[in-house]
């Protein structure tokens, strides 16, 4: 069910929440650390805007809090208390913006969300001629660019890519607006 908020509003809301959760430690941060907080909270916010529906968004959050990730604690802080977090093993039955068909993905056990065992849609039994053309190096590169892309194939890869791009654009637009607003404010 679509929330009334637009994607950008959803992202902005999540982003601000995440940033405010890091506020106390921000007092004497270096610029480098501040950049890390800004970027990580933005990435987590963009993934949260999808509410667990897409594979890439679950991937982004799962990777952020994965054991061994240097910024795991920061990510957990940004995400807030576990009770407020979105479930990451949700069955994607919701409608995506552009395609009402969602492949049912295997629901991993809670512990294995962290361990990247989500299987995304299976390949077609008989690849169409066009799918055959989507093979090789370019497809590999695309898969490396989408969170958990290496587990996606065929149609699911393209669907996830479409969604990922839409969200990335929303993220860039909002961040850019904020940067211009900050600049304008500074100039006054």
């Amino acid at each position, binding site marked *: 069910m679509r929330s009334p908020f637009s994607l950008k509003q959803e992202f902005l809301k999540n982003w601000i929440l995440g940033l405010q959760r890091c506020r106390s430690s921000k007092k004497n941060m270096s610029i480098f650390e501040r950049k890390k907080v800004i970027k990580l909270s933005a990435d987590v916010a963009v993934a949260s805007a999808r509410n667990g529906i897409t594979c890439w968004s679950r991937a982004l959050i799962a990777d952020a809090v994965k054991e061994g990730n240097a910024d795991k604690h920061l990510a957990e802080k940004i995400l807030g208390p576990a009770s407020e977090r979105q479930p990451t093993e949700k069955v994607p039955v919701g409608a995506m913006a552009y395609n009402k068909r969602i492949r049912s993905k295997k629901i991993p056990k809670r512990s294995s969300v962290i361990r990247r065992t989500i299987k995304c849609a299976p390949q077609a039994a008989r690849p169409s*001629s066009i799918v055959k053309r989507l093979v090789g190096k370019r497809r590999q590169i695309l898969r490396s660019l989408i969170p958990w892309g290496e587990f996606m194939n065929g149609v699911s890869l393209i669907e996830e890519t479409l969604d990922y791009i839409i969200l990335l654009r929303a993220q860039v637009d909002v961040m850019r607006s904020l940067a211009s607003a900050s600049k304008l404010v500074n100039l006054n």
Partner: protein
Amino acid sequence: MSSRRPSSRQSSGGVSRISDDQIIALVSKLRHLLPEIRDNRSDKVSASKVLQETCNYIRSLHKEVEDLSDRLSQLLATIEAESAEAAIIRSLLM
């Protein structure tokens, strides 16, 4: 042959048939998202070119996020104005 199965539920070991039409539709959606190809009105863009442009576009979006994060961290460090707007931005983000 185009077999549009309405069901998307995965039965044990089940596989959904994907038709050429579905792929074409998706690839064309992708194409419309890409700034370069969208401006080039020609209908004949190969799937592989679309993939290539998609990868480039995603990379450029990633880079923009990086750059914007840099800019924002610098800007926010230097907000010194005392206007109401500055106070709002400061309280929201710092």
